[in-house]
């Protein structure tokens, strides 16, 4: 009786272990039927892909049916989720014995961190072995984000560079020129504000963290400042930085909708769509959304226009495709990535409304005609060519968070501009010294 008890216990444990061990790996590969004798056997492969639930994902998902039809042995399964859930999921997948995801998308602040940690598969050999891939065709600043330590760790998926979106009808009606310098921009949005009629010059996104930094860094560039200088010293709190923040706060207090301190890009978009604001600094591909007759702007659709941010240099955001170091189907994963980013499929993707990444596609008259017109694409190209990400390096995510917290505190009136930027600079220096 005594022994039976122990035996039963031990057996149960063993069984539990076995069950969990069997559950982990992907289902065993099945033999596909021989296709006309050309390929003797084709292994059936399932690619698990983590995605963010955004319009660009819908387009990729639609296009993928074509890929699956051309490659009957490869099945692509998308796991789409909100942004906040992605970073932990991707990291957990890196740390598992076999990756949960065969393909991941990497946001620009994570690229150096993941690449330097050895979590991503270098793609140089794959790129070299893919005929007609034309890697150099990706717009330079986007390409650079995916290159870590001299190796390509990711290829562009879509860009989210910032541009100036304006209500062209309002500017035309009042005979105001679209501002090209920061000083002009501040003056213009203040002049256009009509508080009595609840119309504001700028719908801003001063939300703590990524959002405010993403918007304000355009102001910083416009004032001639930057986060770091060429030697890597923190210069965010120099004269240009303080001037940029003072001007930003001036705009928030005098030209933005009241109580919008918590706004992100969706609230700003809503204000633009509702006809409450004349301008916003936002993702360039918000323009087609606003101008779409079925879009959020309703009757106002068609009145919006995209320009470069005042001062010219813009904040660049981008997502990249990458293959985890521990992925089990790397060849098939690259097959999919190289297909979706290939010049011909990318052209289709951009025509369907995807955010552009390739020069050849952006400058293609067929894309202009079937897409959103020449002005839009040429503006996007000039934005992309003079754009830089918020921060780089292993700790970009943290740098963005601490700077974004200090900026928000300054706009909230909890600190002076100088104090907030000094505090931000001190924390960034500490983070960089780690």
């Amino acid at each position, binding site marked *: 009786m005594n022994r039976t*008890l122990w035996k039963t216990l031990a057996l149960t444990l063993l069984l539990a272990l076995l069950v969990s061990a069997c559950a982990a790996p992907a289902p065993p590969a099945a033999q596909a039927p021989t296709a006309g004798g050309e390929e003797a056997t084709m292994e059936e492969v399932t690619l698990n892909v983590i995605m963010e639930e955004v319009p660009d994902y819908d387009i990729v998902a639609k296009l993928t049916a074509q890929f699956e039809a051309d490659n009957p042995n490869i099945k692509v399964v998308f796991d789409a989720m909100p942004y906040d859930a992605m970073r932990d999921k991707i990291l957990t997948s890196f*740390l598992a014995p076999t990756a949960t995801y065969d393909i991941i998308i990497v946001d620009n602040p994570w690229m150096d961190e993941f690449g330097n940690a050895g979590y991503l598969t270098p793609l140089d050999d794959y790129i070299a072995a893919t005929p007609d891939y034309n890697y150099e065709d990706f717009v330079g600043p986007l390409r650079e984000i995916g290159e870590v330590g001299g190796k390509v760790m990711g290829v562009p998926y879509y860009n989210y560079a910032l541009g100036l979106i304006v209500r062209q009808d309002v500017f035309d009606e009042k005979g105001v020129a679209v501002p090209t310098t920061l000083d002009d921009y501040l003056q213009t949005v203040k002049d256009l504000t009509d508080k009595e009629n609840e119309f504001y010059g700028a719908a801003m996104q001063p939300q*703590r963290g990524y959002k405010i930094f993403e918007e304000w860094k355009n102001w910083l560039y416009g004032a001639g400042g930057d986060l770091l200088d060429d030697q890597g010293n923190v210069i965010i709190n120099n004269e240009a930085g303080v001037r940029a923040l003072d001007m930003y706060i001036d705009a928030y207090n005098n030209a933005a909708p*009241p109580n919008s*301190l918590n706004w992100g890009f969706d609230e700003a978009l809503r204000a633009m769509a509702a006809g409450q604001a004349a301008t916003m600094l936002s993702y360039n591909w918000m323009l087609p959304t606003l101008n779409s007759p079925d879009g959020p702007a309703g009757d106002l659709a068609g009145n919006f226009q995209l320009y470069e941010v005042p001062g010219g240099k813009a904040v660049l955001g981008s997502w990249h495709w990458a293959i985890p170091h521990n992925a089990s189907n790397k060849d098939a994963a690259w097959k999919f990535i190289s297909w979706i980013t290939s010049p011909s499929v990318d052209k289709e993707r951009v025509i369907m409304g995807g955010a552009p990444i390739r020069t050849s596609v952006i400058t293609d008259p067929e894309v202009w005609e079937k897409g959103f017109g020449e002005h839009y694409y040429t503006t996007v190209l000039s934005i992309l060519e003079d754009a830089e990400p918020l921060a780089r390096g292993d700790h970009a995510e943290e740098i963005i968070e601490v700077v974004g917290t200090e900026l*928000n505190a300054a706009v*909230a*009136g*909890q*600190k002076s501009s100088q104090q907030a930027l000094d505090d931000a600079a001190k924390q960034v220096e500490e983070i960089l010294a780690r």
Partner: protein
Amino acid sequence: MVTQRSRFPLAYRMLLPLAAVLLAVLVYPLVFSFWISLHDYQLTALQDVRFVGLRNYLELRGNGSFWNAMRNTLIFVFGAVTLETLLGFGLALLLHRPNRYRDFFRSILLTPMFITPIAVGLMFRFLLNQQLGVLPYLLGKLGVQIDFFGPGLALYSIILIDVWQWTPFMLLLLLAGLESLPAAPFEAARVDGASAWFTLRKVTLPLMKPVILVALIIRGLDAFKVFEYIFAITRGGPGESTESILYHIYKVGFRFFRLGEAAAMAYILILITMALVVVLYRAMRSAEELP
């Protein structure tokens, strides 16, 4: 066999599975996280884990954000739990009286407690939103402009959301306490002609003290874990004015992947909550010994 059996009786052997489970899910993570807290342990640099002794703990002394989050959390816990206790007790007294609709009121009043907190957070985020919210709209009609999640007010708005959700919990506990009180002292008070206010102060409250303290401990410990409302609504902003301690630890550990520091913060949090529990527990013991 006999000697072996007496040395290790069946009762202990029956406990083994539970002990094994507890060891696996409670003791092991605790010990492991303590080990992590003594190391420079970053999820993106696992090949370079170094022993740093107490450095992670000592560096917390100069970490303004951590102590600011701790301060926010203490204000939150104190504010929310006090309001919930007062409101809960008041409602419990009202519901304790015989009333035809008593069961109806009880079930209505308990509903907020059954909603998952993240949903409550999202609900209030939209309800109080400047563009979409009903409340700012109605207040706007009256000419009142309040930015519920603006600087200065945000933490208090979050306290009120917690009060909305968790007052029913206090109500439930305190009502159960009221119903289990002996009837004799109340009858004696009535016979002696004591006023309602006097009975409440001198009979109900002293008798209820142990129940109130237990309710305070349970609710207080739970309130320390505030995370969902902050995650759903403010993300700790404006500035750092609503950053709670758990949100801060989550940020350092799971967004910045610096698990060593996050584990040290978690251990400091455990120490502080344990100290508070001991104080309240002592108060409870002395309250029980009174009668």
